[in-house]
């Protein structure tokens, strides 16, 4: 870095810090006398239950979206034209409509009338299950495209060599294509899983008691402001940052190998 750059860097850094502290000071001055962190502490159990639910939803949807992602990827590579086109059309529909619409429409119009009673009779949380399913399909649609891109980026010679050594079609994917493709799409996948965690907050519209839902009800019951939103943001960061770090780490690890 040249000297000019260093000076410019320092100036910009100072300006940013000053600006940010001014903003914080102003906000706290405005809200200071109303901010009462004990409110959040009193509701800690509800908040934690919500956060725990968000974690569970994310893990389940992670598995679910991987399943749907693989399904959509193989569907689009199917030798049958009908399967390919159906997949294509479905993916296009899913990716070009808001998740909020899927959740509302999918829950209230499609799945709740069909399964709610059956699931409820078995003592299961129908909102959670249907919500996770819809979230999995939505994220799976993106994952399917990411995986397809990865698989299609593997050079033809690798497919040929794998066939030449006698691998079965499944073994070709298992030992040759997926290990290479996954390395290439890992950063994109991690990005998607971060989105998935954040998108799980939308499940509040069908009444799943996840972190956002519980925080919202805490805020409306206790007239809280900052006390609700700051833990909300931090709670999501605790879930998303490790995923982001993991992806950077894996990316670095695999980079020199291929």
């Amino acid at each position, binding site marked *: 870095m040249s000297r000019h750059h260093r000076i410019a860097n320092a100036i910009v850094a100072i300006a940013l810090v000053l600006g940010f502290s001014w903003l914080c000071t102003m906000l706290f001055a405005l809200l200071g006398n109303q901010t009462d962190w004990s409110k959040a502490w009193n509701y800690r159990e509800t908040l934690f239950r919500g956060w725990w639910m968000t974690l569970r939803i994310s893990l389940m949807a992670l598995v679910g979206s991987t399943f749907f992602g693989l399904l959509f990827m193989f569907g689009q590579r199917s030798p049958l034209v009908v399967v390919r086109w159906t997949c294509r059309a479905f993916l296009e529909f899913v990716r070009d409509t808001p998740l909020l619409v899927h959740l509302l429409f999918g829950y209230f119009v499609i799945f709740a009338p069909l399964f709610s009673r059956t699931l409820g009779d078995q003592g299961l949380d129908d909102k959670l299950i249907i919500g996770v399913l819809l979230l999995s399909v939505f994220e799976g649609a993106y994952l399917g495209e990411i995986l397809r891109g990865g698989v299609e980026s593997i050079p033809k010679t*690798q497919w*040929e*060599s794998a066939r*030449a050594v*006698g*691998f079965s079609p499944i*073994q070709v994917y298992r*030992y040759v294509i997926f290990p*290479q493709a996954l390395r290439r799409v890992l950063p994109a996948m991690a990005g998607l899983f971060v989105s998935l965690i954040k998108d799980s907050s939308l499940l509040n519209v069908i009444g799943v008691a996840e972190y956002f839902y519980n925080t919202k009800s805490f805020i409306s019951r206790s007239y809280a402001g900052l006390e609700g939103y700051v833990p909300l943001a931090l709670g999501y960061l605790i879930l998303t940052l490790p995923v982001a770090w993991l992806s950077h780490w894996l990316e670095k690890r695999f980079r020199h190998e291929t």
Partner: protein
Amino acid sequence: MKLEVTELTKCYGKTRALDALSLAVESSRVLVLIGPSGGGKSTLLRVLGGLDVGDSGQVTINRQPILTDPNALQAYRRKNGFLFQQFNLFPHYTARRNIALPLEKVHGFSPAEAAAMTEQALARFSLLEHADKLPSQLSGGQQQRVGIARAVARPPEILFLDEPTSALDPEMTAEVLELIQELSEAGQDIILSTHEMGFARAVANQVAFVAAGKIEELSPPDELFGSPKSPLCQRFLSRVMRY
């Protein structure tokens, strides 16, 4: 090996890669395919090696017809070996793993047996010092040698080599050709295509000149290189031998 190809045709779109090609070899250990690029050598090798199926025609190797059903083709590929011009190895596995993996997963050897066979193959081709390197850490010639070691770790009925040295510089070409010659001297049946005429002459029992999707001429090397009969073959040889 005994090889019989009758009226084999293969089209890619509108291009006729193989045009009712017929070929009969009674018994030959090393069959070398030569000819101009785009003449059908690779396609013929791919069909013979079970990687592609002809649109029509029949191929019989050692009295066994090659079937077109995917499972039969896979079984057929499993008992043979095939090597391409380059990028044969799986870049995410070490040389050792590249050889051992098919032994375990395709041929069903236990990990210990596979490891022993791999060790033997690596030693045979003086590749032990490179055993734990990734393909990207090997030279092109070393990569091809590992590729060959992988193909013959479990002795194949026939070893197919599609221009195995085309992507290599002269020195590496020599090291790979030496290895192929060694294999042929050890009794391995080989069908290969090449642009190395000197090598073809030295190693082949039969040479087939392939052009425009047909076999133009098939003779023992001394005959084909000494006094080619087909005008196409004469022209090709006079051209490639000039420099």
